[in-house]
């Protein structure tokens, strides 16, 4: 497994994603046990990116289902193309086909609008990566539906019968913990917590995602971010904010961080007035850049 992990780690690094042993082991077990993986963590730490890079590394399709409150089976699984069915009925009104034949035609696969989950089950070539993003935004009714789908990897459509997944997709669920997920869903998944990276890892991430960045600037950004995350902020900046900030500094041709530069670019990683005041206070006192 060590060699496998090393190769997966190398593939992830090639795609600009710096992993660690827990994530690699989790992905290895997703493939081996064919169980979904629930990835939890604060916003902006790279949970969604895991699924994207996994799909690239396996050279397979990524199918994404973005969850929201009110998401239901019609938007996640399938819906009939009613307009096309109506049109087909009108056009074949005077045909000589029997009623049973016409009814069979109306509920054929050409009238079925496949949504992400069914699309993942019906994938012919290779097992895709099914990303169910921010599952905590969906409501409990949708969670109950997911239990059934993720347990057996098959769906029953009353008009068509049971559709079993030809290739079991690799399912990655992400959650920002805006609400607690049910025990039943958690039991069906492997679990991984992804937190903010430490200074060393964040430096590697910056250099991997922004090859043009100066190493010393990357180190300064990572050090400062580590310090800022210890502050009592309302919205702690994640890796996404670090990358945005680094990108902004590169475009402004700044190669080092000083008081003026930080003050000009606070908006790249702070999205809240109170947080802005907190960091600005530390900056003015000189404690931030010590």
């Amino acid at each position, binding site marked *: 497994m060590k060699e496998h992990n090393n190769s997966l780690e190398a593939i992830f690094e090639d795609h600009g994603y710096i992993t660690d042993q827990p994530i690699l082991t989790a992905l290895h077990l997703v493939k081996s046990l064919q169980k979904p993986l629930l990835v939890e963590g604060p916003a902006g730490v790279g949970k969604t990116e895991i699924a994207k890079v996994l799909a690239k590394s396996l050279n397979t399709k990524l199918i994404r289902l973005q969850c929201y409150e009110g998401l239901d089976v019609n938007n996640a699984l399938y819906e009939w193309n009613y307009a096309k069915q109506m049109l087909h009925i009108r056009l074949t009104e005077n045909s000589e086909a029997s009623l049973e034949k016409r009814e069979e035609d109306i509920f054929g696969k050409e009238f079925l609008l496949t949504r992400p989950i069914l699309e993942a089950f019906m994938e012919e070539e290779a097992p895709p990566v099914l990303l169910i993003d921010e599952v905590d935004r969906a409501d409990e009714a949708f969670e109950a539906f997911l239990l059934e789908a993720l347990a057996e990897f098959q769906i029953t459509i009353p008009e068509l019968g049971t559709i079993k997944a030809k290739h079991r997709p690799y399912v990655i669920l992400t959650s920002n913990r805006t609400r607690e997920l049910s025990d039943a869903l958690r039991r069906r998944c*492997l679990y991984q917590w992804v937190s903010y990276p430490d200074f060393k890892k964040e430096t590697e991430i910056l250099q991997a995602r922004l090859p043009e960045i100066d190493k010393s600037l990357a180190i300064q950004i990572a050090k400062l971010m580590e310090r800022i995350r210890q502050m009592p902020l309302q919205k702690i900046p994640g890796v996404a904010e670090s990358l945005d900030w680094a990108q902004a500094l590169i475009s402004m041709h700044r190669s080092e961080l000083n008081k003026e530069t930080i003050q000009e670019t606070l908006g790249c990683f702070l999205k809240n007035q109170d947080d802005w005041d907190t960091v600005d206070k530390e900056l003015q006192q000189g404690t931030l850049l010590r």
Partner: protein
Amino acid sequence: MIQSEKLSIHLLLFFRYLREKKFLIGTKEMSDGLRALEFIDISDIQQFRLALRIVLCSSRAEQETFDHAFIKFFLNNNQDQQTEDLLHVLTEKKRKNEETNEVNRTVESKEKSSTSPSINSARQDQITDENSGKEQKKMAIWTATNLMNKDEQDIQASISSAQFETMEKAAKTFVQQINLKRLRRYKVMKNGSKFDIRRTLRQSIQLGGYPIKPVWTGPTKEKANFILLCDSSRSMSAYAEPFLQFAYAMTKCTNNVEVFLFSTKLRRVTDQFKRTKQDEFPVLTIKRNEWGGGTCIGESLYSFVQQYGMYVKKNTIVFIASDGLDAGAIDHLQSAMKEIHQRTSAVIWLNPLLNIEGYEPIARGMQTALPYIDLFSAVTTASSFQQLAHQVQIRR
């Protein structure tokens, strides 16, 4: 190093131990745990640990418990003796449970087979006596006992069933009484006030274009979320019980509730409440340093905001039950209270010391928190919780 022939026994004991710690581990999870080991190098302790952790844990809190347990089971030098001890304790527990079940089954079968009314009434008396005995146990005062091995540093705290029905009514009153604002978005409802022509026409496509089933929408009220933070320090040990009883009642009335204990550390106990069986009362399993110790209110609330800040939203009502005697840093308390106040609909502080004649909230913790409190009260009984629901003022 564990001997290979003992590894399977050790793993099963480990799984059972985690299950005792309220992990969601059934037969399927145990089987997955064992299967996961087939795909890794089990001689690499790091991979061994990670594989089990990924399969057996289902939350971050469980990962922390898992890590402690893993060190104890697989990295401790006294493994053999501990294995023997744990095996003995778990076997004893199982035997006692089986004996209790057997007694219950015997009583039930005798009751069923009996036909004489006098015999029936005698059986009924016997059952009533047994039930009242159980009730007496349940109504035991607030106790804490050691769990298994003293090195565990876990204690159990049971919640009383006295006056629970009144407490449950109080919780229902709270959930129904809290009026948050109406949402702008209209939702589909049977008795809605607004006829939704778009949805009606959309639905009519399935019915051949005939709008037979009209769709109505109406405004909905925003649902309130409740967060209950209970001070479990030594000074609050006599007062925490009614609050935790109320917290349990709230978890039975609504899903949108989170319960935390804090003294020197913060601990989420919502799952322990929600996983309690229907006809039982929760018995909280908590670390020794989280119960009956010192108080760091500020640090605990600060770490609540940091770790669980995503639960603090504009439709949240926060209850804090504490006497305000804070031994920690005041800055943290001020910052945490300010943030909680800004982001929520109401902050209710329940201080039992307010019932004491002549008490003034002059302790620095209370003074710091007071500007951020919407309702400052001292409820200690079920009926007073019910009255509290009518006093809450929502800011948004």
